[in-house]
């Protein structure tokens, strides 16, 4: 937990000199506690106090970047236990496992699946984020071979190098250290050697112990060796254990600002049954994992997990939305249709996608309704006849159109009369209810 106003007050000069722009030190302390002011505003605060405040203000889960370049994954920085309190910050990364005991063609098939996993959904590019390379053989040479193969085929993907054998780790790091991988596999037995490697090669260290308590002791020990960036594993593998461990770790970090456990968490979801694996991964996504390791990247599984991750990591206060304007789908001509809907991202992408499917060049008028769906916006009084009319008139779009006709969503058929009154000279056409009926509708429109 961050410091309270009173605790912060005790660290200030208590002279009420007002140089910070606040009437008293206490008033300033209260603002600091709410993170609405920066300590830099007080010129007289001691260096010691500054350090204490800085430590307390640091995010309870350490920000950590894994991988390099465009594919780098941000982890940590979380501040809450429940998403209704505040947005979850960095979406959980999904990694798929390959092992050095697998046949080459199997490895190659998995890598192909991962590389082809990207899909666009609601305006975001979603994909499997990383490869988890495992040293199941415990043999350094096999591991080196695996890492070489992975790096050759997927040079830009973030990597987790998993081994508890320092010799194998070093062999792999020699190949892949510049990719800022995670070296996973430090435990009580090899901590010093692994920490040394992490430090030398400047990589993130994955640390595993049985249970939060042992884990906290181990991360402190490793920090003592000079390693700052860690990813932690509390050892839980069944769903019950994953849930318990993840909750206890997150609570320690958020509620107590307990630094030894304030690191991103890695979770192992692999199961023989891929549908069950999907559910275990869902648990990680919902309950505080920063990386979930999977055994495969089937397309049906990917899209379900991507959607869940995207949903749970949206801002609960502000729905995803797009800019108000009249978009062109294809290259609309004066006689092309004009279609209106709200600026909720999901609505926009569904509707524009179906217009694309129709191959009928169109104008899509997107009206600002604070990111609400058609019916929600209508029920909230934001997608009403007067407001739509005003938007259409002010847009001046009529000048570019041969016939003044506006197609409205079928779900708001009820407003068509009022809209005709507010838009004199316009023809209001009621479209289908569901967007998937749009291609057929548009193909027959004006025929």
């Amino acid at each position, binding site marked *: 937990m961050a410091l309270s106003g009173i605790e912060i007050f005790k660290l200030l000069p208590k002279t009420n000199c007002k140089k910070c722009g606040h009437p008293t030190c206490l008033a300033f302390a209260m603002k600091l506690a709410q993170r609405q002011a920066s300590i830099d505003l007080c010129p007289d605060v001691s260096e010691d106090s500054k350090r204490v405040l800085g430590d307390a203000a640091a995010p309870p889960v350490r920000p950590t970047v894994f991988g390099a370049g465009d594919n780098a994954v941000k982890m940590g920085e979380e501040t809450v236990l*429940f*998403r*209704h309190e505040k947005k979850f910050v960095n979406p959980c990364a999904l990694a798929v496992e390959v092992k050095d005991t697998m046949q080459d063609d199997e490895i190659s098939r998995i890598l192909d699946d991962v590389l082809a996993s990207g*899909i666009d*959904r609601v305006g975001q590019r979603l994909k499997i984020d990383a490869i988890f390379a495992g040293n199941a053989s415990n043999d350094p040479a096999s591991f080196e071979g695996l890492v070489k193969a992975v790096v050759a085929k997927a040079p830009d993907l973030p990597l987790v190098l998993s081994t508890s054998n320092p010799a194998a780790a070093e062999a792999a790091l020699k190949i892949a250290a510049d990719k800022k991988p995670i070296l996973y596999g430090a435990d009580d037995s090899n901590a010093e050697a692994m920490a040394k490697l992490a430090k030398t090669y400047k990589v993130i260290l994955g640390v595993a112990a049985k249970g*939060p*308590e042992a884990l*906290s*002791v181990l991360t402190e020990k490793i920090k003592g060796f000079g390693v700052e960036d860690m990813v932690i594993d509390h050892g*839980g593998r*069944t*769903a*019950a*254990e994953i*849930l*318990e461990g993840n*909750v*206890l770790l997150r*609570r*320690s970090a958020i*509620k*107590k600002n*307990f*630094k*030894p*456990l304030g690191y991103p968490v890695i979770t192992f979801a692999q199961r023989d*049954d891929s*549908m*069950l694996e*999907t*559910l*275990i991964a*869902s*648990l990680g996504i*919902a*309950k505080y994992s920063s990386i979930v390791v999977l055994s495969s990247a*089937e*397309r*049906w*599984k*990917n*899209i*379900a*997990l991507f*959607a*869940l991750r*995207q*949903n*749970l990591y*949206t801002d*609960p206060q502000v729905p995803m939305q797009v800019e108000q304007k009249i978009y062109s789908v294809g290259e609309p001509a004066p006689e092309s249709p004009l279609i209106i809907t709200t600026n909720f991202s*999901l609505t926009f992408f*569904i509707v524009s996608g179906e217009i694309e499917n129709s191959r009928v060049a169109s104008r899509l008028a997107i009206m600002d309704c604070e990111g609400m769906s058609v019916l929600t916006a209508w029920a909230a009084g934001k997608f009403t006849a007067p407001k739509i009319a005003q938007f259409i008139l002010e847009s001046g779009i009529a000048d570019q159109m041969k016939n003044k006709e506006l197609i409205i969503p079928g779900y708001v058929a009820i407003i068509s009369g009022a809209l005709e009154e507010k838009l004199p000279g316009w023809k209001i056409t009621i479209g289908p209810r569901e967007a*998937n009926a749009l291609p057929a509708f548009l193909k027959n429109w004006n025929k």
Partner: protein
Amino acid sequence: MAYVAQKENFPGKVFEVTFGTDTKAVFGGQNALPFYAFEGSIPNRPLIAYEIQDITPDDWPEAVSSVYKDVSHDPVAWARFSQDELKAKAIALRLIGTHPDREDRTPAEAAKAVRDVLAVIKVPLIILGSNSIEKDGPVLIAAAEAASGRNCIIGKAQEANYKTIAAAAMANNHKLIAMSELDVNLAKQLNILISQMGLDKERIITDPMCSALGYGIEYTYSVSERIRLAALAQSDPAMQQPMLGDAGMHAWKVKESSAPESDIPAWGPEKERGIAWEAVTAGAVLLAGADILIMRHPEAVSSVEKFIDELMQDGGR
């Protein structure tokens, strides 16, 4: 700095609901967040009911309708199949045929479907209207009467029609589903209104309104979490009702669970995709607090059951 486990004990608990007569089913009763067995008591596992309908569904994607192709023309055959072949622990009969936009079946026809189904099943029954505000009243009055003495769950009572439906539940000794639209305060208010009518608050099941993965599940998720926190942390008796997740219906309505792979190759095979869509929708609402689920595909159900097995086991501690 030594580690101290941050365990939380809550003063409140979720009401326990038992329904059915012959083979009974029970859910709720916990004083911890969903599956947080490490700090509270979770006496019952969440219950999954199989959905059946009074008319042949024409809007279920092939991946799920094909499972029931030999039985879905007849609710009795469908109920038997669900109980005997699929080993359903409970059945949810949705009287969708009564909707004015579907077959506009009469309350008497609905009552007959209920009687016929009850005659062949031992497991407990949930009786759902068609979600027509006007029609659900008369339909559920007739259905509740037809099921009198069988200790069913009926629903869904909503703000605009709760009086008739709650009265029907009371008169025939059933439990009642109260549904609001993704709003904690509205959910609470509806529970209060219904208990003020004289229906025991411990006989209400709250439906915060489910939504599908990819289509608003985050709203259901957060509203459910908030309801559950109010139940446990504040012991608010208007929030301590167990929660329902009507997952199957929502999951099988969206494009991701139906579009053929040939249309969108990047999404993979539609059968697995549809099952995963239903299973992940159900799994997410379980993690947020649902105590009873209504689902459609047997493979989605069995995956979610395995998930619950793992979540409920003591984890080797």
